[in-house]
């Protein structure tokens, strides 16, 4: 029984034109919401669906919306996170380039449910094609009366603005995004206050990822009960897994939560290159702990199962490594990334990310001592749970768990004075 996804048009098709989107059920959810449902009913439906955030943290969307103060406090905003930058993640781009009206419809329904005045879609600056495509769709939606004043006769006035970032990963952190949107460095804010109370310009703000918002039209059109038939009890619906690395058919695959990782790798993504064996899998973007091949072949892709098996679902970005890959080199790239992306506010992160990168380089070059492995472990522990945002934790997990789960390979570098897979492994 093959699952047929609902977030993206069939392979090779593009529903960016309003007519194509509408021909496939587009805007029926929004029409139903504003014509037949009270805002509170929409909120209840989203809550009942169990829809969780697809941007990394997996927080319940309906719950997040319910934190907003009661209607009457205006203006209030949506910040939609299109800063997709978690290495290995390339799913929101698919939505933005091939089905942008679905996002617009999701934002419109969220605006109705939460009495929102305007949404700002914060898109990473590198996504030029997606930016142009979404802007064109917004213009078409406005011309058709889905944006602007008194939308569909409902009395709702609502606008969407697409805003370009400029290449900083930290702006995908919710409060870093808000600082950036306001025209500042993207340095995350201390919480409380949380964005629902004081977000953009200190106003009540809903913040959700592109894919999260893209599920909303389907939840409203087909109902929470339908949505709950897909996925698992606590991870409802489908999600778009991005599969990359040493795999025959890298790409995006929309599948229900709870799909076995083995199936994603060996069936959907075509398995490994001939003659190779699986070594490791990162299941949710480089912020999330790496899994050994043995564990990877046993887990299903949902929040609970991954958590029980020592990782997290993150963005559903699956990065596959076969037996040619050096695990220390993988850790170097991750450490280098976080060193580059640390915003510099918190000492543990600013210093820790630099130390991790330098130590990983030393280990790979065979110039480290055994005690340096304990130093890496100690640094990562000092980086967890001590900073304004979670980038420091992600940096600690991302490379730290490569050491914890592949320690003998790290030790082999030290014992041999260099990389055992030199000339075989990918270069960094």
């Amino acid at each position, binding site marked *: 029984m093959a699952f047929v996804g609902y977030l993206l048009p069939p392979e090779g098709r593009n529903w960016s034109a309003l007519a194509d989107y509408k021909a496939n059920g587009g805007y029926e959810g929004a029409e139903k919401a504003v014509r037949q449902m009270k805002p509170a009913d929409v909120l209840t439906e989203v809550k009942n669906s169990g829809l969780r955030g697809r941007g990394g943290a997996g927080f319940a969307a309906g719950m997040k919306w319910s934190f907003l103060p009661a209607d009457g406090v205006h*203006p209030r905003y949506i910040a939609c996170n299109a800063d*997709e*930058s*978690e*290495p*290995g*993640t*390339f799913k*929101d*781009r698919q939505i933005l380039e091939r089905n942008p009206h679905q996002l617009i419809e999701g934002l419109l329904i969220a605006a109705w449910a939460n009495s929102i005045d305007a949404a700002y879609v914060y898109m*990473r*600056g*590198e*996504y*030029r*094609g997606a*930016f*142009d495509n979404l*802007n*064109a769709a917004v213009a078409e939606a406005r011309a058709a009366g889905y944006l602007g004043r008194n939308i569909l006769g409902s009395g709702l006035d609502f*606008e969407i*603005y*697409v*805003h*370009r*970032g*400029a*290449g*900083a*990963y930290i702006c995908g952190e919710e409060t870093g995004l808000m600082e*950036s*949107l*306001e*025209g*500042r*460095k*993207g340095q995350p804010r201390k919480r409380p206050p949380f964005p629902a109370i004081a977000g953009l*310009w200190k106003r009540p703000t809903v913040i959700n990822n592109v894919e999260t918002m893209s599920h909303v039209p389907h939840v409203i059109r087909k109902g929470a009960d339908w949505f709950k038939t897909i996925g698992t009890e606590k991870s409802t619906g489908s999600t778009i897994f*991005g599969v*990359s*690395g*040493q795999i025959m058919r*890298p*790409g*995006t695959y929309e599948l229900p939560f709870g799909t076995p990782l083995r199936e994603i790798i060996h069936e959907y993504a075509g398995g490994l290159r001939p003659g190779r064996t699986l070594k490791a899998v*990162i299941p949710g973007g*480089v912020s999330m702990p790496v899994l050994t091949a043995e564990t990877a072949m046993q887990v299903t892709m949902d929040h609970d199962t991954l958590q029980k098996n020592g990782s997290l679902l993150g963005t559903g970005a699956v*990065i596959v490594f076969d037996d040619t*890959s050096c695990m220390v*080199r*993988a850790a170097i*790239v*991750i450490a280098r*990334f976080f060193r*580059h*992306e640390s*915003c510099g506010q918190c000492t543990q992160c600013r210093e820790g990310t630099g130390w991790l990168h330098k130590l990983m380089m030393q280990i790979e070059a065979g110039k480290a001592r055994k005690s340096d492995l304990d130093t890496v472990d100690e640094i990562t522990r000092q980086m967890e749970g001590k900073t304004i945002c979670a980038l420091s934790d992600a940096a600690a997990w991302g490379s730290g768990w490569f050491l914890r789960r592949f320690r003998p390979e790290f030790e082999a570098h030290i014992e041999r004075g260099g990389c055992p897979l030199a000339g075989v492994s*990918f*270069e*960094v």
Partner: protein
Amino acid sequence: MPLSEELKARIAAEFPKYPEKRAVLLTALHFIQAECGGWVPPDTVPDLATLLGILPIDVEEVVSFYPMYHSDPVGKWHLQICTNLPCCVAGARGLAQALEERLDILSGEITPDGLFSIGESECLGSCGTAPVLQVNNEPFVENLKPADLPALLERLRARAAASGSNGSNGSNGSNGSGGGR
């Protein structure tokens, strides 16, 4: 070089989208880079600060914080290879080295004719089609192999010749209003 009246007008046209003018800063810097050959010349900063009602330092710290803004000149074609994990696994390092050898410059440098500069990028969000390269702010060049580089560079040289310039021009970045490519 002070900001042209035309550019000031384009920046000001963005103000109604936001409750505060300062929110236009990142967009304005994209406009300036597109207009000034891919970088933010320091003498545009005071004008921009005045227009947005902020201090020059407020502009400068944003320019230095975000990787997409350049406070020094870049080539007409600024080539960035993603060297994050999925691209490295797919051979990005070899690609980056081949590019450096072919252009005879290192990452961070500009060719003597001003046509090309090289940078490295963090994950560009194209991991299913790795390795990937971005030319200026154009749509990505995907599944790129070292053997594809000569043809890519030739195409870019031809485009530069067709636009009648070498060195910097206004093709870097976006006009920000959509549909500009």
